[in-house]
């Protein structure tokens, strides 16, 4: 009579499978539902300590209070991984030995970016996704030509700031196309659009820093992983306080160099932060093209995203759609449990997506017969790219293996573990992989990604010509089943 209800236990063990802690922010939703689809805000890694245009890096003095905080952050992260990682053996690594090696180096680091880099280098030796520490001061200071505080404040920006959602971006998405950082989307009406930027332009520098390499990693990265991380790096550099500015150097359609100073626009709606994930403006967009329904969303959340996606699917069914395209390009995951109701909406027969393997027990992700649900029975096509990660991959892999969906696009990120993001002292957080994921056939997606049924190669020329070749291929596949 008096215990609190343990359906929460069920929920909690399913929840977080996002490939990003607070730092790598979810991307804007894919553009397929139409030009009116709003873009998401790209919150940055962490609020820099100095947001008034001064140094974002905390001054470092050995023996100061900062040293105690660093020690506490190191202890917290090291211990959390030891006690909560799904693999009790930590891949056979000598975890105590790594502490002996890295602790003195990290504590003596000359600045906060170096401290966090060393800590993440140690965690990186496990060679897994969902394993990172973030905290105040981790990003190097912005160059002096960047204005980090707005010079003039608009009413909209002020309203958002008061609500605590004071991060925005200039409205462009940068991905690696044919090996080069390329603008692949420009949000209509954004600062980037106003500056004349277009899909297909090549980006060389953001914020005065070259965008040609990643920070050192403790291991060799797979090609798709490199593309994924560069995409995240670009998003982080572009994001910042609403009204602040960021410089961009790029090559236009004729390879002429141009440089623009872009203002970061306010987010389209209120950002929400769930379970220590990066704040995100949830976006769901849908449209129907003939007998094909198309829905995209930028993050897996039970509230409010799930309800809107379910409504879109029900709407397609009611309007006689025979196929549905689910566009998961750039979707970094989120609440892992959302795969169950979403798959339930798309399955007329019981379907198992896979198993979440915790440290001491396992839980199956399977559709459940819910009262009042009429599932969609037609063909399902899922669009993917290198930014399709985590919960998105679990959903895609499960439906693909069950032959319930065809996958079109690029190999996914290969970052499919269940995780939690725990708070550490000093405002830092650590993301810990607390569960592995296996498909019903026992395959791991982590480190491999989901291989599309039809791989589509995107080109700069295609973006310059305004084509979305992945969506076009998806539509072809969706219509292939129609008489």
């Amino acid at each position, binding site marked *: *009579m*008096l*215990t*609190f*209800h*343990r*359906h*929460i*236990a*069920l*929920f*909690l*063990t*399913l*929840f977080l499978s996002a490939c990003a802690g607070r730092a790598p922010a979810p991307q804007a939703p894919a553009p397929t539902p139409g030009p009116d689809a709003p873009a998401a805000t790209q919150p940055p890694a962490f609020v820099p300590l100095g947001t008034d245009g001064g140094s974002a890096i905390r001054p470092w003095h050995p023996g100061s209070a900062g040293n105690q905080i660093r020690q506490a952050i190191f202890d917290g992260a090291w211990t959390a991984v030891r006690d*909560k990682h799904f693999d009790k053996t930590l891949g056979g690594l000598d975890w105590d030995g790594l502490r002996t090696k890295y602790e003195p180096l990290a504590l003596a680091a000359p600045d906060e970016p170096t401290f966090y880099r060393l800590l993440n280098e140690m965690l990186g030796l496990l060679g897994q996704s969902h394993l990172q520490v973030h905290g105040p001061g981790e990003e190097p200071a912005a160059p002096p030509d960047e204005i980090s505080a707005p010079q003039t404040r608009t009413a909209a920006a002020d309203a958002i700031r008061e609500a605590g959602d004071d991060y925005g971006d200039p409205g462009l998405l940068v991905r690696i196309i044919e090996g080069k950082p390329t603008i692949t989307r420009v949000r209509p009406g954004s600062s980037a659009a106003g500056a004349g930027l277009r899909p297909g332009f090549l980006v060389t520098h953001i914020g005065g820093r070259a965008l040609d390499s990643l920070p050192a990693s403790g291991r060799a990265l797979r090609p798709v992983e490199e593309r994924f991380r560069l995409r995240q790096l670009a998003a982080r550099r572009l994001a910042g306080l609403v009204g602040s500015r960021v410089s961009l150097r790029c090559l236009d359609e004729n390879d002429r160099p141009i440089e623009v100073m872009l203002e970061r626009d306010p987010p389209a709606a209120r950002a*929400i*932060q*769930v*379970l*220590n994930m990066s704040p995100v403006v949830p976006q769901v967009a849908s449209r129907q093209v003939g007998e094909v329904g198309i829905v995209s969303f930028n993050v897996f*959340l*039970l*509230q409010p995203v*799930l*309800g809107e996606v379910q409504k879109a699917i029900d709407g397609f069914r009611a309007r006689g759609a025979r196929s549905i395209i689910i566009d998961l390009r750039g979707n970094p995951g989120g*609440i892992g*449990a*959302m795969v*169950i*109701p979403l798959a*339930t909406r798309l399955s007329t027969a019981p379907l198992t997506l896979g198993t*979440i393997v*915790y*440290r*001491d*027990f*396992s*839980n*199956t*992700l*399977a559709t*459940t*017969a*819910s*009262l*009042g*649900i009429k599932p969609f029975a037609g063909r399902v096509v899922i669009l993917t790219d290198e930014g399709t990660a985590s919960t998105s991959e679990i959903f895609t892999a499960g439906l693909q293996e069950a032959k319930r969906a065809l996958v079109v696009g690029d190999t996914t990120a290969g970052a499919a573990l269940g995780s*939690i*993001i*725990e*708070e550490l002292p000093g405002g830092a957080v650590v993301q*810990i992989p*607390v*569960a592995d994921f296996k498909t019903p056939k026992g395959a791991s997606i982590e480190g491999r990604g989901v291989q599309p049924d039809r791989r589509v190669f995107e080109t700069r020329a295609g973006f310059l010509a305004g084509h979305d070749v992945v969506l076009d291929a998806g539509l072809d596949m969706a219509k292939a089943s129609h008489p």
Partner: protein
Amino acid sequence: MTIAVLLSLLAAAPAESAAHLRPAQAILADYANAIGGRAAWKQLRSVHIKRALTVAGQGASGSEEHWATADGKNLSVSTLRDVGTFRQGADGHATWSQDPVFGLRILDGAEQEEARINGAWNAEADLASLYLSVSSVPPPQEARTETGADLECVELRKKRGKPSVLCFDAKTHLRVLQTGAQPSPGGDIPYKLVFGDWRAVKGIKTWYLEKMTAGPTTVEGRITSLVFDEKIPASRFKMPKP
């Protein structure tokens, strides 16, 4: 002393300690008395509880509200901010659950059995009646370290599902720890509950703090309001429509 003798002594040790355990019925009877006695509990007609929920270290919090009446009806509504609302109830006919993950379901099998036990009226003063059988067992290895108390433990076996182990402080006879497995559509989820902050209300004693650990996550539930014998309309317990 030969190795064989040593082994036989070691083998005999658990049996000897088990023989010293008090009978489960006696442990449960002491618990019933410690929380006010069966008579005091039997006088109650309804309960309305509000709890604050906090997911430790993970930036999530919420609330739970629970209503139950002496005729066996109950409803729990738990909400985690920006995550979702979870409902579970029994209207006298069906035991049901509604949440964003599994939708609206009539519970059956081990899930229904677990819900029946959790929602049973006056369960605390008559725990044995809810289970198929009860027996005393040695405390789990880590339990004493966890609670810092001498414990007496009882294994509670259900009609369906895995048994639970409930441990009581040997001095106060109040419950301090419970372990078990929560049935779910995806399989059993092992959990541990720790109870504390006992307070007297209207002649009975109950815990105000409950910490649940499932996998890597710990949730704390703290009672913010507890009212007995409030008038609760029957409509409160109606199962939602699909």
